[in-house]
């Protein structure tokens, strides 16, 4: 049979290409476009080359915000992942407790970000907040508006409260998929509780943990709404994360060029770190 060679098959991918173009490629290219130009408004642009990138990489403000982001994500992962695993291990596997626990766990996930911010903003206030007031009555010197450490603690506790359940739910899904025979065999082999965790539960949770770590890293690294609502980036710049800084620059100061350059660097960092996590975690234990 004669085969016809042409490129008409490309028409078949056209719809999805258009969709991706409008939702991702064109906006991204707009940002790239801004990042190499300067403007004084009125839609007049000047070519700026890589100047904005150079300026960004030499700006202490950027590096400080980046450091805050990395520290924040590090703390979040270090708390939420082990805590999530621990809670998932202790959740009931059968009976009426299962739906109760699942609903309780899902509740924080259903609350919009800015509402979570508002809840904790009020909760922690020294004058009227249940937490802030109680702490100050107990004689604890707590004030997230003035003390950077208190501000950080508040945001971290809030994030743990908001997002640990995501890790819990993912781990729980991994745990319940382990067949009973594994636990029975472990009993017969005389395995300790730790061995069961280390050699059965953890390997079986490996895939979902990868997803949990990736999601929690990306989300915490891009955190914006909650600290914006609670502290507005303060006191000083102590809780000014990259995203907050970016919005200040783009919307507040209308510095489109530098903001675009920063967006791209920000985007690349998230991709790079996620790629590292993904590679490390999928390769772990694969070599034979």
């Amino acid at each position, binding site marked *: 049979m004669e085969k016809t060679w042409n490129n008409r098959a490309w028409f078949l991918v056209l719809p999805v290409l258009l969709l991706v173009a409008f939702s991702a490629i064109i906006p991204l290219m707009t940002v790239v476009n801004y990042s190499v130009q300067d403007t004084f408004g009125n839609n007049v642009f000047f070519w700026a080359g890589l100047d904005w990138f150079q300026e960004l990489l030499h700006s202490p403000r950027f590096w400080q915000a980046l450091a805050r982001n990395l520290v924040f994500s590090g703390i979040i992962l270090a708390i939420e992942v082990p805590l999530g695993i621990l809670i998932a291990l202790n959740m009931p596997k059968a009976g009426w407790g299962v739906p109760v626990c699942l609903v309780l766990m899902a509740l924080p996930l259903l609350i919009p970000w800015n509402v979570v911010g508002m809840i904790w903003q009020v909760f922690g206030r020294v004058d009227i907040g249940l937490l802030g007031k109680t702490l100050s009555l107990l004689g604890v010197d707590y004030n997230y508006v003035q003390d950077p450490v208190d501000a950080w603690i508040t945001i971290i506790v809030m994030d743990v409260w908001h997002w640990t359940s995501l890790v819990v739910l993912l781990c729980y899904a991994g745990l319940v998929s382990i*067949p009973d*025979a*594994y636990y*029975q*065999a472990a*009993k*017969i*082999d*005389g*395995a*300790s509780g730790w*061995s069961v965790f280390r*050699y*059965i539960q953890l*390997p*079986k949770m490996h895939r979902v943990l990868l997803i949990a770590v990736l999601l929690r890293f990306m989300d915490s690294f891009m955190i914006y709404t909650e600290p914006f609502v609670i502290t507005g980036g303060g006191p000083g710049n102590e809780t000014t994360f990259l995203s907050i800084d970016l919005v200040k620059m783009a919307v507040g100061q209308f510095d489109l060029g530098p903001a675009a350059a920063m967006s791209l660097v920000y985007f690349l960092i998230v991709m790079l770190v996620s790629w590292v996590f993904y590679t490390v975690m999928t390769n772990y*234990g694969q*070599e*034979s």
Partner: protein
Amino acid sequence: MARIDLDHVRHSYLRNPVKDADFALKEVHQSFEDGGAYALLGPSGCGKTSLLNIISGLLQPSRGRLLFDDQDVTALSPEQRNIAQVFQFPVIYDTMTVYDNLAFPLRNRGFSEPDVDRRVRETLEMIDLSDRADKKARGLTADQKQKISLGRGLVRSDVNAILFDEPLTVIDPHMKWVLRSQLKQLHKRFGYTMVYVTHDQTEALTFADTVVVMYEGEIVQIGTPSELFERPSHTFVGYFIGSPGMNVLPVEIDGSVARLGTQSIALPGAVKSSGAVKTELGVRPEYVRLGREGLPVTIRAVEDIGRHKIVRATLEGRELAAIVPEHGEIPAEPHVIFDPKGINIYADSWRQELVA
């Protein structure tokens, strides 16, 4: 190695079992001799896995005791009972090497490393996986994984028994045969007490010296494969073993004559009147002779399965299967005769001895 005694063991998954029907495992009072190869055969849900898990200690029986060599082990944990169990789906520790998988139960029991090494190497030899000792266990095929599950039991050379819970379910047909003969070899060489749960009669009959047939939570017959075939003590055994299964016909007994509708069948002996509600005559297709004399039948179908033919016929409105040799004649006006030595009489499903 040990002799295993089940002393009036019953088990229910309900908290407060009262009626007989509450028990998943009705009373089992049975011994497994030291070094014997037993098969527990029965359909799904007959209680065979429950029985196995009671022996291994994964399940605490609701009633009764379990003895290993006359020692009561009912309260002991699976680890303390020192048994090995191979499950339906291979259980391996994915992240460990084959070697570490086998070493795991020994290390958990605090064996010294030189001891562990010696035993693991011996076992690897036995299960034929020496060349893969340092490979990760996850990359292996299903039958190799199943061998590792078995190996984790064999490393403890003093195991009291090796229990198998339908271990060949996920294995390819060819490897099934290979593994089964390797198991038989291990049994011959080392004399382990083995209990093998299966719903596959071929597996049970080829593996075991003694087959225990279970049905609805009780043991209905214990015997050698030929005993199960020749003298099924319960109509269920008749149906379940053999292909096709035994013909079971409702009859009325009158001394040494069984009446089926308008036909009479002479029995090799008389049946003691037992006052049973339901009397049946069981005869395997192998003992039904097709010819020109005897009871008239109508033939519905003939299945040629190679070495012989299965004739599906109707006798007095009842289905009847007969086995005819490959070149056996099928007469135009077919009749059947039951070979007297193949005739069994059942009262309320249980076999009755005939008095000559």
